[in-house]
């Protein structure tokens, strides 16, 4: 049986010989890596051109700007009232994170632990806001919020951003809740703890990693969410992305470089969030809920 075919040998030698043979013999591997490197080079070009331009004095038809300055940052800060915009962004994000956790975690607990009639339907309803493009439900939602006088200031922005955030919290929290041994809760109930005590004294401390992970994911998504904020924000409730969009679409009036400076401020804010996020969560969780961890 194992005479003609190469039977898999022990694991460590297999990987080392494998790698050596790949580099030598497989053009397919080189093509794949070439595509990846080409993608990253272009990505680098996209990001670096914004960064260089934001520090450049004048940059028209040359490889690099004529001189370098930091004055565009000061101008962007004043022109776009960035302090106010950043404060609004932080306020909106903190409110959305807090509210979506308070609403989402109990629901995630009920959905993870219990089975009851209509559970699949309820789950589907929670999934829909993530599956629909934001513009599709954003326009009717903005219409309703305007009708009740909620849109045009911060409450509307927060409410609209909650729509995808609450389902997202439910989806990311469910695996974390499933990992907790239900006997711990039963023991607490036996010792006389009510539901509230079980939640606050037993489950919440155990769920801290999951709560942190979903809080950070919601934070990243809220800071980056354009459409819903754009549809519901008034002039003094713009977040950084929306302000950036407005400054770009009116770029004829303002210097290109101060728009670039603003974009760099936005990027660095996102990068700080990203570095924090990656300390707590798996990169694949940033794009979708991970139903079970790939490697365990």
């Amino acid at each position: 049986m194992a005479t003609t075919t190469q039977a898999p040998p022990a694991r460590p030698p297999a990987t080392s010989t494998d790698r050596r043979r790949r580099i030598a013999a497989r053009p397919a591997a080189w093509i794949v890596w070439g595509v990846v490197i080409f993608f990253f080079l272009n990505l680098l070009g996209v990001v670096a051109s914004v960064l260089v331009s934001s520090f450049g004095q004048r940059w028209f038809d040359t490889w690099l700007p004529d001189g370098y300055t930091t004055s565009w940052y000061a101008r962007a800060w004043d022109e776009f009232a960035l302090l106010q915009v950043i404060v609004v962004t932080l306020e909106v994000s903190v409110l959305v994170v807090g509210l979506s956790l308070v609403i989402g975690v109990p629901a995630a607990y009920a959905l993870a632990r219990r089975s009851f009639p209509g559970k699949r339907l309820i789950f589907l309803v929670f999934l829909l806001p993530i599956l629909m493009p934001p513009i599709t439900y954003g326009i009717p939602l903005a219409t309703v919020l305007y009708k009740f006088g909620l849109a045009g200031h911060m409450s509307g922005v927060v409410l609209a951003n909650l729509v995808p955030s609450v389902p997202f919290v439910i989806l990311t929290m469910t695996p974390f809740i499933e990992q907790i041994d239900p006997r711990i809760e039963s023991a607490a109930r036996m010792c006389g703890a009510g539901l509230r005590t079980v939640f606050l004294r037993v489950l919440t401390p155990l769920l801290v990693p999951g709560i942190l992970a979903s809080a950070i994911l919601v934070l990243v998504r809220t800071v980056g969410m354009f459409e819903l904020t754009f549809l519901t924000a008034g002039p003094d409730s713009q977040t950084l992305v929306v302000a950036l969009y407005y400054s770009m679409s009116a770029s004829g009036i303002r210097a290109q470089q101060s728009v670039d400076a603003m974009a760099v401020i936005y990027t660095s804010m996102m990068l700080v969030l990203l570095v924090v996020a990656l300390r707590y969560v798996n990169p694949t969780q940033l794009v979708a809920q991970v139903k079970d961890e790939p490697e365990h």
Partner: protein
Amino acid sequence: MSGAGPGRPLAHWQHRLAERGVDRQLWLLVPALVFVIALFLYPFFYGLTLSFQPTTGGPFSDYARFFSDSYERGTIWITLRIALPAALLNVLAAVPIAYRMRGRFRGKRLVTTLLVVPITLGTVLTAQGLLNFLGPTGWFNRILLASNLVDEPVRLTHNYWGVFFSLVITGFPFAFLLVLSYLSGIDPTLERAAATLGADWRRRFTRITLPLLMPGLATTFCLTFVLAFSVFPSAVLVGNPAGETRVISLAAYQAAYEQYDYPYASAIAMIMGFVELVVIAVVLAARSRFYTGSTGGKG
């Protein structure tokens, strides 16, 4: 657990409900349900009814208006023409790359971290970067000109290609990370078993890995397509919003915020949702024909 109340008939129905899994713990669901009904289902149905109450004409006149005007009707085709190839390319390109990277190797965490960056950049910043980088005096065209590949700058912004590239930059990392997580969920012993039985690389991929991966690929395609279909900021900023990249979300936005015709905007939003759901339903129907057991096809 619950429901040992004093009144006998009361205890009776509570008990019967508890046996079917309905008891007081389900109150935990209520805040989220109220929320999703008030902020998602109610606005959605409000928009649906509003779309049948146009400012002039009968209940269907806004839909008729959309489909009779070729400038408006064309937005569906324009959106699909951008979103379908972009989503397809993202998923198809992600498969060989993820297949190559599914094992453990040095720098894997670095590569995945770098791939997350464009997701967090968002469409607005990507648009700004593309304008600088791919523009007529940007670095990309300079390199092409300097290496004598072209005689005059290639026009890659303010047209179809600008939007397409922006969708690839934001969509590809997303598709890659999803495909990678689906691939790592496939039990590697299956492939090794096939190798012992004499299957070569090509057969192992087409007969073992690909069929197990197909459901995951369908899900990835759907999610990438949803992202690409709702393209809005980049269509305005790097596209040609009056012409070849006037996507349907832009038409809906203009109806609502430039013409203040909310019934018409709702009608366009409903059409948009419908078209998107049709594409997703087709993909998911095809997906259900593949094996979705526990071994590989998670989700």
